[in-house]
C-alpha cells in the first residue's frame, strides 16, 4: 500500500469521474504499477459483486399505500367542505335569489345580451356542483382526456384548454343542465377556488366579455365567441375571473 494512486485516483478512474488528462495520466501509471493494476481488478470485482447481487430494495406496496394516504391528508380537498348550516344558508339565499331574479331578470338579460338561462339557474348549478362528488364527471388535468370525453355525449364539442401555467389548472369536466338544455361544464381551479365554465352552442353573433354579474358573493362573466356561449362563474374576485375569461376568449 505504498502507491498514492491506489488510495484515491484509482477510484475516480473506476467511476469515470476523472477528466481526460488525469485519466490518461493514470493509464500511463497503470502500465508500470502492479499494485494499482491488482487494486483496480479487485475494485472492479467488488463493484460487479455489488451490482449483480440483487441488493437493491424497492419500496414495498404497503409503503406506497401509506404515502398515498399521507398525501391525501396533507392536500386541501378540491371542493371545499362546507358545514351543514352553510348549506341551509346557501339554500335560503338561492330561494331569495330565485324570487328576486323573477323580477330582476329582464335587467340582467339586457346587460348580458340575453343569456339563455337565468342568474338563479346559473348560481344554482354552480352551488350544486360544489357538493361532494358533483364537481366533475371526468376528473383530469389533461385537456386531451377531457375533450374526447365530451365527444358523443353532446351535440357539440366544447373547446378544452388547460391554463395551469397561467394559474388556472384544468380540474375536469361534466355535463349539466341549464334551462332545460344540456351544457358542457369545464372546471378550473384557482388556489382553493373552483370555477365552473358553462359552454353551450349558440346561433347568436359574437359578443365581447360582458361586465361581471354579481350576486350572493358569486361573480360571473358571460360572452359569445365562435358559435359558443360561455359563462364562467366562481366565488373568485372579479379581476381573477376576468383573467380566465380572457384566456378562454383567445
Amino acid at each position: 500500500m505504498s502507491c498514492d494512486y491506489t488510495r484515491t485516483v484509482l477510484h475516480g478512474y473506476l467511476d469515470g469521474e476523472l477528466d481526460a488528462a488525469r485519466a490518461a495520466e493514470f493509464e500511463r501509471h497503470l502500465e508500470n504499477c502492479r499494485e494499482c493494476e491488482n487494486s483496480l481488478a479487485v475494485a472492479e470485482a467488488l463493484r460487479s459483486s455489488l451490482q449483480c447481487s440483487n441488493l437493491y430494495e424497492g419500496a414495498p406496496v404497503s409503503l406506497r399505500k401509506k404515502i398515498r394516504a399521507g398525501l391525501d391528508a396533507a392536500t386541501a380537498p378540491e371542493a371545499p367542505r362546507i358545514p351543514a348550516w352553510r348549506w341551509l344558508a346557501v339554500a335560503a339565499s338561492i330561494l331569495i335569489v330565485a324570487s328576486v331574479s323573477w323580477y330582476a331578470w329582464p335587467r340582467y338579460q339586457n346587460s348580458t345580451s340575453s343569456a339563455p338561462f337565468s342568474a338563479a339557474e346559473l348560481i344554482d348549478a354552480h352551488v350544486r356542483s360544489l357538493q361532494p362528488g358533483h364537481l366533475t364527471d371526468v376528473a383530469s388535468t389533461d385537456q386531451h382526456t377531457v375533450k374526447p370525453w365530451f365527444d358523443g355525449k353532446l351535440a357539440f364539442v366544447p373547446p378544452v384548454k388547460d391554463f395551469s401555467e397561467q394559474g388556472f389548472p384544468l380540474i375536469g369536466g361534466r355535463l349539466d343542465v341549464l334551462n332545460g338544455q344540456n351544457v358542457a361544464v369545464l372546471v378550473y381551479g384557482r388556489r382553493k377556488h373552483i370555477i365552473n365554465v358553462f359552454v353551450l352552442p349558440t346561433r347568436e353573433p359574437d359578443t365581447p366579455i360582458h361586465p361581471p354579474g354579481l350576486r350572493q358573493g358569486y361573480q360571473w362573466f358571460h360572452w359569445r365567441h365562435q358559435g359558443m356561449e360561455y359563462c364562467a362563474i366562481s366565488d373568485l374576485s372579479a379581476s381573477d375571473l376576468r383573467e380566465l375569461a380572457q384566456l378562454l376568449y383567445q
Partner: protein
Amino acid sequence: MSGSDQGRGSDVLDAQDRARFEQLVLPHLDAAFNLARWLLKSRADSEDVAQEAVLRAYRFFRGFHGGDARAWLLQIVRNTCYTWLEKNRPVELMTEFDEELHPQPSASPEALAIAGDNRERLTRALDTLPPRFREVLVLRELEGCSYKEIAAITAIPIGTVMSALARARQRLQRALTHPTPQEASREL
C-alpha cells in the same frame, strides 16, 4: 382578493402541488426506500422512516424550485435517517469517518469475486460498515449517482467524495475477505 386567497403561502398544498409532486418526486420512491434500508439495516424501520421523509418532502415541496428531484428527495431521506439513528441507535454513529486506512494485505481479484458471490455475505459485510461508508457505496453502486449528486445528498464536499468511496471500498473489501471472528463463525 378575498381572505382565503392567501392560502398559497401557507402549508396547505393543493391539487396542483399534489400532481406536480407525484410527477417529479414519487418516481424516486424506490431510491428513497433503498437508501433508508441500507442506512437503517431494517426493512420495517425503513418503511416508517421513508414514509416520514417523503411526507416531510411533500410539506417542503413549495421550497423545491426544480433541479434534481432524486437528489433533493434522497437528501431529505438521509437526514431523516440520521435523525432517527441519533435517537434510536446513537452507538452506530460514533465511528469516526476520517479514520486512517490501515495497511492491509491486498486481496486477489479472484478471492474477492468468490467472497462477494453471495448476496447474504455481501449484505452482512455491508451492514458491518459505518453508515457513512455504506451510504456512499449504496449511492454509487446501487443508485448510480455521480460524485456531484453524492456530494449534494450526503453533504460531503465534492472534492472528498472520491476518497470517501476509496475508503468505503477498502472497508468493504476487508469485511468480505477478513470477516471478524463472529462473522466467520456465522459462516460455519
